[in-house]
């Protein structure tokens, strides 16, 4: 993985990783469900296969109104979603003038609902409240790809804008044809097409009701439609609150956990007491389910390792599982403990730990610095644990579930239950937090299996302990860095190896001479997957901690040393602004006892960030408190300033957890801290003084249909941990090369 071009460029387009074309994926360890197939199911599976061939599009109609016609041109799926879609798949203009816009993206608190509503309203030239946005219902919406990788802003916002802008152009052309005038003389405002010269106007509703409109709306949305330039934005770029906010403060909004269906049962799964081989759950040797079966109203489902119950109340379902738990016998293979985690990763690195290829530099350098960094497993712990409601009707399945990838979960359900995707509808109501932790559909599959066997709708809601144990984790990482300096204190070579945690932001963001970066997989003891910014946090923690060490070796101020090696003008701009706003030089030189300041910067997914932190250390307990964080962030043109500020604020505070306290501990295959009483996420009393600055600088666009904005939900988290570690060094002279960053108490 070479870094060649990145370093050579100044402020050219090539210096900005193209967030649209980025070859990006976030593999997540999925659970392998091995359900047995009954003969009856087998026949049905064949039947469903035939249905695909002859009747694609004949789907469920369980909800009011059933499936929308023409709304399923959804392409192949995957990280980026399907291919081109029709106008009708993207939006609908009712005869009453109501505009409904469809997107496969989900809302998990990151702000997609407001942003995509703005996108449609901007291009259709209507007020925000004219748009009703339908999100994440596989029967209704196009597949816009999984909601991850900061992809909504650079990819789905332009897609929605293209659909809306093309529809606007279509309506203009319909009106100008009717009036027999040139389209250039026709204007659009407030949901009306207007010809000022002849004082004529038609509403969108009138135009959409025309006979030929229905036909033209079945056409494919052309690519390359010109979008409204940033300078002409009236709705985008303006602070926009969440459209469904009132229901969020009254308790009226139904999260996936809150869905209630007639005759619904509550499910519970028998979980192993420990992990098994290859980061999978331990295998079940035997269990006696008769005690649960004997309980009134309880349905027991057993299929291989899968054992679960469904009951009229959660309380009864829990009792049923508790009744059979003592009878269960599980395999208990050796499992590496968290205290030996980094030895384990080093030992199992595929192909071994690579040698530094720059032997010539090592032999001639004025100075060489070599260090290793540790980043443990952490959990996303979204406030709403995994949840799903599954309902079968005539061999068709509807699942309401919290996931970042409803189309991907539809595929998981199809594979696990061996039915056609066309017989599955996945609906994702706005849910309670993802942070990269909900790419998968475990609860959906489990609920569907229980519901199928019980013959009733089942709601399955994971407990916090289940979420802390059987969901996936941000991967632990062992990072090894070695660099050389010449006599002037300039970096001449850079060898940077990440074992296990991932390749995001692996390339140095500095000019470092010869460079080689490598990501190496290892035998991961826990199931892992995405997380807000994923490995960018680990790699930036190591690289920015390491840069501070190099600055010391070169005898330079950390800011000056960074700027001397920094070419990316966007990154320079945020770093210089952060130093200015924080009053870096003055604070660094006039430091009080037991306090320190640190600085760090980084880039990921086309956005750039810099942070300065001030910390204070309790002289006795050596506990580290973060007093102040100044962060400057830039992600191109700001679409929703209110939401962006909130996301940056949330990322900084969330980042304090893994920086200072969070780490999953496991011993003999058992999780030791699977509870909020043992795993300490940030609370009110952790919040430092925050000084957040957002730079609003549209990215140069490659075409009029391109995005001037990068995604912004992740990158603001990556600079906080290294800034704190560097501040601890400033305060104490101790270099902490592991997260969480802690000091041993005084004797």
């Amino acid at each position, binding site marked *: 993985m070479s870094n060649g071009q990145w370093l050579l460029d100044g402020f050219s387009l090539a210096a900005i990783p193209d967030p649209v074309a980025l070859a990006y994926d976030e593999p997540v360890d999925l659970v392998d469900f091995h359900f047995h197939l009954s003969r009856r199911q087998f026949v049905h599976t064949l039947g469903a296969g035939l249905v695909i061939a002859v009747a694609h599009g004949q789907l469920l109609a369980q909800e009011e109104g059933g499936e929308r016609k023409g709304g399923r041109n959804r392409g192949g799926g995957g990280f980026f979603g399907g291919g081109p879609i029709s106008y009708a798949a993207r939006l609908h203009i009712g005869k009453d003038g109501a505009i409904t816009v469809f997107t496969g993206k989900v809302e998990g608190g990151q702000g997609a609902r407001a942003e995509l509503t703005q996108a449609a309203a901007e291009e259709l030239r209507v007020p925000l409240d004219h748009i009703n946005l339908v999100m994440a219902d596989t029967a209704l919406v196009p597949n816009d790809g999984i909601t991850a990788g900061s992809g909504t802003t650079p990819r789905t916002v332009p897609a929605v804008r293209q659909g809306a802008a093309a529809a606007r152009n279509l309506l203009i052309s319909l009106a100008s044809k009717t009036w027999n005038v040139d389209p250039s003389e026709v204007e659009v405002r407030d949901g009306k097409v207007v010809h000022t010269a002849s004082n004529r106007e038609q509403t969108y509703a009138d135009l959409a009701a025309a006979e030929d409109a229905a036909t033209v709306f079945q056409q494919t949305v052309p690519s390359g439609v010109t979008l409204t330039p940033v300078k002409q934005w009236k709705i985008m770029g303006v602070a926009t609150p969440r459209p469904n906010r009132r229901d969020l*403060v009254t308790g009226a909004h139904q999260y996936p956990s809150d869905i209630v269906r007639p005759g619904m049962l509550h499910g519970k799964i028998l979980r192993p007491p420990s992990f098994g081989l290859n980061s999978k759950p331990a295998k079940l040797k035997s269990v006696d389910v008769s005690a649960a079966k004997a309980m009134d109203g309880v349905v027991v489902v057993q299929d291989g390792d899968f054992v679960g119950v469904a009951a009229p109340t959660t309380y009864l379902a829990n009792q049923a599982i508790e009744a059979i738990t003592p009878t269960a016998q599980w395999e208990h293979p050796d499992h590496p403990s968290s205290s030996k985690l980094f030895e384990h990763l080093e030992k199992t690195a595929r192909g071994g730990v690579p040698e530094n290829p720059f032997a010539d530099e090592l032999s001639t350098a004025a100075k060489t610095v070599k260090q290793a960094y540790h980043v443990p497993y952490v959990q996303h712990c979204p406030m709403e644990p995994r949840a799903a409601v599954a309902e079968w009707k005539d061999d068709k399945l509807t699942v309401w579930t919290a996931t970042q990838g409803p189309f991907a979960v539809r595929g998981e359900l199809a594979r696990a239950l061996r039915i056609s995707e066309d017989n599955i509808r996945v609906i994702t109501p706005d849910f309670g937090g993802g942070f990269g932790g909900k790419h998968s559909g475990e609860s959906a599959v489990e609920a569907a299996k229980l519901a199928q066997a019980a013959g009733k709708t089942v709601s399955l809601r994971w407990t916090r302990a289940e979420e802390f144990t059987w969901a996936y984790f941000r991967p632990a990482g062992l990072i090894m860095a070695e660099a050389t300096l010449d006599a002037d204190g300039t970096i001449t070579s850079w060898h940077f190896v990440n074992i296990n945690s991932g390749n995001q932001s692996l390339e140095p963001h500095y000019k470092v001479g010869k460079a080689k970066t490598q990501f190496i997989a290892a035998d991961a003891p826990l199931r892992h997957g995405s997380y807000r910014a994923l490995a960018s946090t680990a790699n930036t923690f190591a690289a920015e901690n390491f840069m501070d060490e190099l600055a010391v070796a070169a005898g330079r101020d950390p800011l000056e040393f960074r700027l001397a090696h920094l070419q990316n003008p966007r990154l320079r701009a945020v770093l210089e602004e952060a130093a200015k706003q924080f009053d870096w030089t003055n604070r660094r030189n006039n430091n009080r006892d037991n306090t320190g300041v640190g600085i760090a910067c980084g880039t990921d997914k086309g956005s750039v960030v810099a942070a300065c932190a001030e910390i204070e250390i309790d002289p006795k307990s050596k506990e580290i408190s973060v007093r102040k964080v100044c962060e400057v962030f830039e992600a191109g043109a700001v679409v929703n300033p209110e939401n962006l500020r909130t996301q940056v604020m949330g990322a900084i505070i969330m980042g304090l957890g893994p920086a200072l306290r969070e780490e999953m501990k496991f011993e003999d295959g058992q999780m030791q801290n699977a509870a909020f009483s043992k795993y300490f996420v940030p609370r*009110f009393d952790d919040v430092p003084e925050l000084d957040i600055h957002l730079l609003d600088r549209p990215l140069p666009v490659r075409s009029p249909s391109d995005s001037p904005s990068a995604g912004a939900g992740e990158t603001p988290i990556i600079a906080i941990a290294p800034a704190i570690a560097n501040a601890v060094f400033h305060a104490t002279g101790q270099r902490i090369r592991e997260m969480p960053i802690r000091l041993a108490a005084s004797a």
Partner: protein
Amino acid sequence: MEATFTLSVNGRQHLVTTDPQRPLLDVLREDLQLTGTKYGCGEARCGACSVLVDGKRVFSCRTPIENAADKTILTIEGLVDGDKLHPVQEAFLAENAFQCAYCTSGMIMAAIALLADKPHPSDAEIVAGMNRNICRCCSYPKITSAIRRAADAPVVAGRS
């Protein structure tokens, strides 16, 4: 053994026959379909399940139903007066004091309890009063602003 309890929830009386140890949270959500109150941890450590019992904040996930019987229970659904929101709800809206908002019901109930006890809390008192509630989106500064705003509003007590 099951027993029958009288629950007064949001001004309405309910008779519930169930196991005395069953959590109030489950009864609210599963028997009374009041799903605005959320499960977050099951160990009274996150505050998502907060409701008011006789005006005091309790963690409904760890409150056996028998302990709530014959008491006055207020949940998030009981705050609106017709179309009119409670001042704390208004303040949360005005400050956009949420992201995913799954914690919001519990935050609002905890804030109402805090303001009933300390109508004009200092920032330190807000932190102390709210520190048992978790927001994983980390909207804490905005929640604090919302509580300050509610404290400054002309009518704070509302119907609590």
